[in-house]
C-alpha cells in the first residue's frame, strides 16, 4: 500500500529500501529509512560537523559504515567521512578529556584524544593494549536503530537529500545491499576470535598492565606532590596513599555497625523491671500488628481469589 505511506513525517524523509531476498524467505520486503539533515539536540551548540551530517533512523540491523557508504554511493555518488552510532546498552561512553581516573583519583595525561566510539577495555589504553575484537566487522545493532552520517562536505549532504526527495517523488525504492558476511560464517569467526592466540593476548595484557603501572606511578607521584605542596591558601591537601593509607569507607561502616551492636547489647535485655514491662508491651503490640496484617492479607486474598472452597 505505497499510497498510504507518506513522503515525509515531521521533517524526516521516508526512503523505502528494497531488501535483498534470500532463499529461505523469498518474499519481497521493504524497509523504510527515515532521514533528515542533522541538527544538534535542543540544548546543545552545533558542532562544525553538524552542517554536513545527516541523521538516519529506523536503520536495518546490518547497517554499518560500509553498507551505508554503498547506499549513499548508489543514491547520489556521495562519499561519507564517517558514521556515528549511539552506544548500545551496557557500553560506556568515554570522552578523552586528558584526565584518566586511576584508582579513584584523576590523573592528568599529556596529549588529547578525540571522542571514541567504544570503550574497549576501560579508560587506560596504551598502544597495542586494547583487547582483540571478538566479531568480524561491525556489531549488529538492534532493530530500528539510529545513526549520524558525516559526509565529506555540506554539498554532498545536500545532494543526498535531493536524491532522496527525487526518488520518493518517483515512487521508487533504493536498493539495500546488506552485509554479506552474515550467517554461520559470522558465528564461526566469532567462535574463533573468542579465543585469541595466547601470545597476542599476553602481549596486549602486558602492554596494558605496564601502561597501567606507569599511570599508577604518575598518580603516586602526583599525590606525593600534593601532599608536600601547599596550595594557594596555604593548605596541604589530604590525599590517599600516605604511609598508612586511610581506612576504606566500607571498613569504617562495618566498624560503626559493630559498635552499634555492642551498644545495644550492653543496655538491652531485661535487667530492669521497666525493660521487661516494655518488652512485653512491645511484643503485644507486635502480635496485634501481625494479626491485623494477616487479617488484611486474608481479606485481600478473598477479594482476589474469590471464596475459599475445597477443590
Amino acid at each position: 500500500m505505497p499510497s498510504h505511506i507518506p513522503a515525509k513525517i515531521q521533517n524526516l524523509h521516508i526512503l523505502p529500501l528494497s531488501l535483498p531476498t534470500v532463499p529461505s524467505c523469498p518474499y519481497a520486503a521493504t524497509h523504510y529509512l527515515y532521514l533528515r539533515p542533522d541538527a544538534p539536540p535542543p540544548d546543545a551548540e552545533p558542532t562544525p560537523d553538524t552542517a554536513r551530517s545527516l541523521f538516519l533512523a529506523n536503520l536495518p540491523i546490518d547497517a554499518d559504515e560500509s553498507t551505508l557508504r554503498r547506499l549513499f554511493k548508489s543514491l547520489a555518488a556521495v562519499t561519507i567521512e564517517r558514521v556515528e552510532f549511539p552506544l548500545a546498552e551496557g557500553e560506556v561512553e568515554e570522552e578523552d578529556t586528558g584526565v584518566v581516573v586511576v584508582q579513584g583519583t584523576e590523573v592528568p595525561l599529556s596529549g588529547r584524544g578525540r571522542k571514541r566510539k567504544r570503550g574497549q577495555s576501560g579508560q587506560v589504553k596504551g598502544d597495542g593494549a586494547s583487547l582483540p575484537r571478538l566479531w568480524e566487522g561491525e556489531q549488529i545493532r538492534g532493530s530500528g536503530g539510529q545513526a549520524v552520517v558525516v559526509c565529506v562536505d555540506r554539498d554532498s549532504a545536500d545532494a543526498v537529500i535531493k536524491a532522496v526527495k527525487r526518488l520518493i517523488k518517483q515512487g521508487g525504492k533504493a536498493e539495500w545491499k546488506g552485509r554479506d558476511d552474515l550467517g554461520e560464517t559470522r558465528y564461526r569467526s566469532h567462535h574463533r576470535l573468542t579465543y585469541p592466540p595466547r601470545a597476542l593476548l599476553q602481549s596486549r595484557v602486558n602492554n596494558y598492565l605496564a601502561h597501567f603501572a606507569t599511570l599508577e606511578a604518575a598518580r603516586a607521584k602526583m599525590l606525593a606532590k600534593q601532599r608536600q605542596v601547599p596550595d594557594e591558601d596555604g593548605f596541604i591537601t589530604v590525599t590517599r596513599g600516605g604511609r598508612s593509607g586511610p581506612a576504606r569507607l566500607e571498613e569504617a561502616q562495618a566498624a560503626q555497625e559493630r559498635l552499634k551492636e555492642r551498644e545495644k547489647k550492653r543496655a538491652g535485655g531485661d535487667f530492669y523491671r521497666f525493660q521487661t514491662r516494655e518488652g512485653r508491651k512491645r511484643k503485644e503490640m507486635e502480635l496485634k500488628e501481625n494479626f491485623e496484617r494477616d487479617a488484611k492479607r486474608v481479606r485481600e486474598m478473598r477479594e482476589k481469589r474469590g471464596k475459599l472452597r475445597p477443590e
Partner: protein
Amino acid sequence: MAPPAIKRRKLSHTPSDGDTSDGSEQSGFPSEEEHDSADDLEGVSDDSGMEDASSNDEDEEMEEDIESEPVSPIAKEKLAVKPAAKVPEKQKATAEKPKPRHTQPSDALTGTGYTGEVFRSNMFKLQVDELLEQVRPKHGKKEAAVERVLRALKTIIEQIPARDPTSVVEAEKALLKKDRIAVPFPNPRPAEDAKYKLAYSKPAQVSVAGSYPLKTTTGSSSDLVLDIIVTMPQDIFQEKDYMNFRYFYKRAFYLACLAAGIKANKQHAFDLKFDYLHGNRLLPILVVTPDEKDAGFKVVILPAVLKNVFPVEKLLPTVNCVRPKVLGEEKDEPLRPTPFYNASIRVDSLALAYLKLQHDAAKQCEAYKDACVLGRIWLRQRGFSGRMRNGGFGNFEWGVLIALLLQGGGPKGMPAFSPGYSSYQLFKATLQYLATKDFVKNPQVVGGSLALPQEKGPVFFDVTRSSNVLFKMSPWSYKLLQYEARTAVAMLSDSVFDHFDATFIMRVDQPLYRYDTIVEIPVLSLVPVAEREMLEERLSSRCQELYTTLTRGLGDRVKLIQLHMPEEENWALGTRAHAISNDSKVMIGFVVDAASYNRTVDHGPAAENKKEAASFRKFWGEKAELRRFKDGSILESLVWSTKEGSSIFRQIISYLVERHFGKDAAADMSYTGDQETKLVPSAGQPAGIAPFHPIMMAFQALEKDLRALEELPLQIRHILPASPELSYSSVEIPFIPGRTRMTIPADVILQFESSARWPDDLAAIQGTKIAFLLNLATELEAHAAGMTARVGLENETASLQNQSFLDVIYPTGAAFRLRLLHDREPTLLTRRLKDKTLSQSVKTAAAAALAAFKRTFVHLPAHTQAIQTLATRFPALSTAMRLFKRWIAAHRLAPHIAPQAAELLAARAFAAPYPWPVPSTGTTGFLRTLAFVARWDWRVEPWIVDLSVGGGPGVEGGFDAQAVQAARLRFEAWRKVDPGMNRVVWFLGSSVDGEGVAWTEGRVPKVVAGRVRALAKAAVGVINDRERDVGTLFGGSVTEYDFVIRLADVGDKGKRKEKEKFKNLAQQAGEEDVGYDPLGAFADEIQRLFGHAAVFFWDADRRDCIAGLWNPLQEERAWKLKLDYSTVPVEKGEGVVARINREGILNEIARLGGGLVKKVDVKGK
C-alpha cells in the same frame, strides 16, 4: 522449649499472663506436649471439683436440644426414650471443665488468642474460620423440603401392613411377583429348606441420625444425605438369629418389605434403589430420592435392631458366629472368629447410641463440631469415606473417634483430649493420634478393658457400645490413613510455612500424583472361573491375598501399597445385586522407596534357618537361589536383572502376580510407572544422580589439578561449581566417558585468596584477571598432559563486566569454563553507582554490571551448591528437575526461563512437598510440580522455596519464618514499584536468595508466565482425566505461532544426529568446537535484536525451529522516532501511525541466519 512453658501455665492459670509470654514461641506442638497438657488439665479438674450435672439433668437438656433441631418431630420422641445413663461415672468427671483460656473468643481481638499452639498462626486461623463459614450448609431453604419428605416417609413406613411369617422361598416369590422386588439377600443365599420364617411388622421406632441432626454437614460436598433409622420390632427375631446369616436374611426381607410399602404408595413418586451400607455386602439399604425436583438431598433408609435383641458377648470380635456347614470333621480345630460379621450386626443396633455419643461430645466440647467439619474436609480431599472401597473411614468414624478420645483413650484410661481444645487442636491431635498409634499391632480399647487379639485390620474398640469403630477398614486403607495422617502432622508442624491450602483445599487422591507406580488387574482374571458365582465376596478375599503377597514380596522397596476396588453402583429394586461390573479392574497403587525400589539383590533368610528358608523358597519358587556373600554368610536370595527391558520393580510385580495369581492375571495386568526413563536420557543408568557421576568425578579431578599447581602467585581459596551440569539438573547427561564429549563447558567459579596487590580499578582488575588466567593456562597444560586450556574473551561491549574466562578441556572429553571472582568488584561498582558526578549512562552500565556480577559470581554458585546438596538428599529430585526442564523446553519456553528458575520451581515439590510427602520418583515429582505451578497465581503470590531443608552440609543457615516474611515483603514491594509487571513477573525466592529476582528480573515476560501456567493447568486437566501416559504432556505443535523459522541441520545439531547413529563419531569431534553453538548464538542474537517486536520460542534440545509471536502492542501505534523495531509509517486519518514491518523483520532474521535458516513460514501464507 515446650516443657517449661507448660509448667508455667500449670502454675498460673490466669489467661492474661501466659498468653503473651509463651503464646508466640510455639507454633507447632509435638505429641508429648499434647499429652502432657491433657494430663495437667486432668489434674486441675480433679482439684477444682466436678461441675457437671447429674445424668438425669443432662438427659433433659438433651431433649431440649433435640427439640430445637430442624428434624425434631421424628428425632425427638425416639431419642427421649434412650437413657444416657450408660456413660460410666468416671468419664463423666472429665466433662465440662473450666478452661477459660482456650475458649475465650474475646482473645481474638487482641490477636493473642490466635498465636501459639491454639491455632497455628493468625493466617491459618483466619482461613480456617473462613473455610468453616463457607462450607457450613445454609440451613433454611432445604429445611422445609427435608422435613416434608421425612414426615411423609415416616407416615408411609408406619402404615405398611404387616406380613405373616412365611418360608424363605415363598416370601421371596411373593415379593418378586406381587411387588417386583428382589430381596437383597446377602451371599451365601439362604438355604431353600430353611426352617425359620420371614415376617414383617410395624417398626419399633423410626428416627433420624447421621450428620444432619448433628449439624456437621458441609455444603460443599455432594448431595446432602439423611439417614432414617427404622428399628425392626423384636418379635420377628429369635434369640439365635445372630448365627449363620439368619439376622441378615430377615433384615434383607424386612428392607424389601419397606421398599414394597414405599413403592406401593401412590401419593409420592419416590425413586427407590438398593445399595449396600458403606459397601458392606451384609447390609443392604434403601436409597430414596425425593420426587421434588432439584431437592438436592437423598434419604437413606437403614433397618436397625434394638440393642438388647442379641447378647453383646456373643458378638464380640473374638467369637465365631458362622458355623461351617459340615460339623464334626474339624472339631479339633477351634472355630475362627468372625469379627466382621459380628461387627456388622452390632453396627445395626448402635446408630442411635453413636448419635447420642456425638451429641454429648458436641455439648461437652465447644469445638467438637468444627473439628468434625475440618476432619470431614480433610478426609474428603484425600478420598476417604465411610464406604469400604474408599477406606471405610469417613465422617462418622472421624467424629466418633474424637468423641471417644474426649472420654478415654489416654494413659490409664484418662481422656486423650481435653474438651478445652480448639477445633484446630482437636483436628491436629486426632491426626497425631492416628499417625503415632498402630491399631493393627496394638488394638486400642476405649472405655473399659478387654483383651483383644490382633486382627488383620485395625481395631479401635469401644467397650461401652461393644463395637470396633474401624471394623470396615482394610489393612491397606488403614496404612493409607496413617500415611496421610503422618504427612498432615508433618506439614502442620512446619514452623516456616503454614500449609492451609495443602491441608484443606487441594485434592490429594488423584492416583498419578499420589502413587509412583500403578498396576491394574481386571477383576475377572483375579477370581478363578469356578468362583465367579460369588464374585464380590471372592474378590475381597483375593485382594487380601494380593495385598499380603505384594507386601511380602516387595518388602522395603515400597512405602505404601494401596488397593482400590472397582466402583460400585446401586441397583434397581427388581434386579439382583450386582454392584461390580465384570469389566472393572482392581487398581493397585505403590508409593516406592526412592533409595531401594530398584535394588538388584534381595537377601532372604540364612540357609541354616530351615523353616524360614523353606517358606522363602515356597513364596518365591524358582527365583530363590542360595548365594554366598562377601561377608561369608550363605543366604537365600533373589537376583534381578537390569537388562530385561523393564524395570526391576515391574519384574518383581509381574513375577509375583504370575506365581500367585496365575498367568492370566499377569498377562492382563497393566503397568504405569518408570516413565522418566523414556523421557529424559539416562545413559543406561538407573534414574537418579548416577548418570552424572562421570562429570562429578571430572570436576573433582579438575579441583585436584588446580590445587596441585604450585607456581601460582596466589593460593586458590574456592573452586565453586556454577552450572546445572554440576548440580544434577541438566536435561542432557553432560558427559559419558568414551561416548560423548562435552560441547558446552560447565561453568566453574574460581576465587583466589585475598591480596592487597590487586589493583583498585575496575579495568585494571579485568586486565589482571586475564593475566592470571594466562598464567593458569600455562601451568595447567604443563601439569597435566593432554589437557587443553585456552583463555577466551566475553562481554565485548560491556567493559565493566567480566571480560575473560578459561576453558579447560580434558582429553576424556570433560570441559569446564573457569571465571575468576574478585570480591572487590561489587564494591567498586557500587561506588560508581553512588558517585553523583558520573553520567546516567555510566551509572546504567554500572548497575547492569553489578547485576551481572551478582548473578554470575554470587547467586549462581550458591544456587548450584544448594541444588547439588538437595539432589543428593532426595534421589528423585534430579530426574524431576530434568523432566520439568524438558517439559519447558518441549513447549519452547526455555529461552525465557532460566534453568535456575526451573530448578526452583521443581525443587518445591521436594522441599515443601505438602499435601503429599516427598516424591520417590522423578515422574511423580514432575507431575506434582505441574500441579503446584498450575495453582500458583504469580500475580499475587511469591514462590518461596527452602532449599536448606534439614540443613545439609554446605548450605548456610536455615530458613525461618522471618526470612519468609522478609521475602514476602520484598515481593509486595516489587508489585508496588512495578504494578504492570514489566520487570519482575515471577518472584522466586529461596533460602540462598531472599531477593527472589536473580533469575527472573527482565527475563520472564508476562506472556510466558501466563503460558506456563496455562500449560500446567492443561496438563493437570489431562492427568485428572485419567491419562496415564506422561509422555503426552510433552507434545507441542507450532501451528499456533505467527511465524516459524525452520532451522537447518548445522553444527551441533547435525553432529547430534550422527551421534545417534555412530556413537564413536562424537568422540572425534575436535576440541576446537567446544563451546561452539551457532544455533544458540543465532537464537540469542535475534532475541536481543527483535525481542521488542516479537516473543521467540524455541526448543534448545531439539533445535528444529524458532517460533515467534508478534507483540500485539506493537501492531500499530502512534508514530514516533525512537521505536525499538523496524516500522512502516502509514497515513491514517489525520496523523501517521507506525506499523511493525513484519516482512522487513523476517527478511532481516533470514539474512542474519544465512545458511542456518532453512525456511521461514508465516501463518496464513
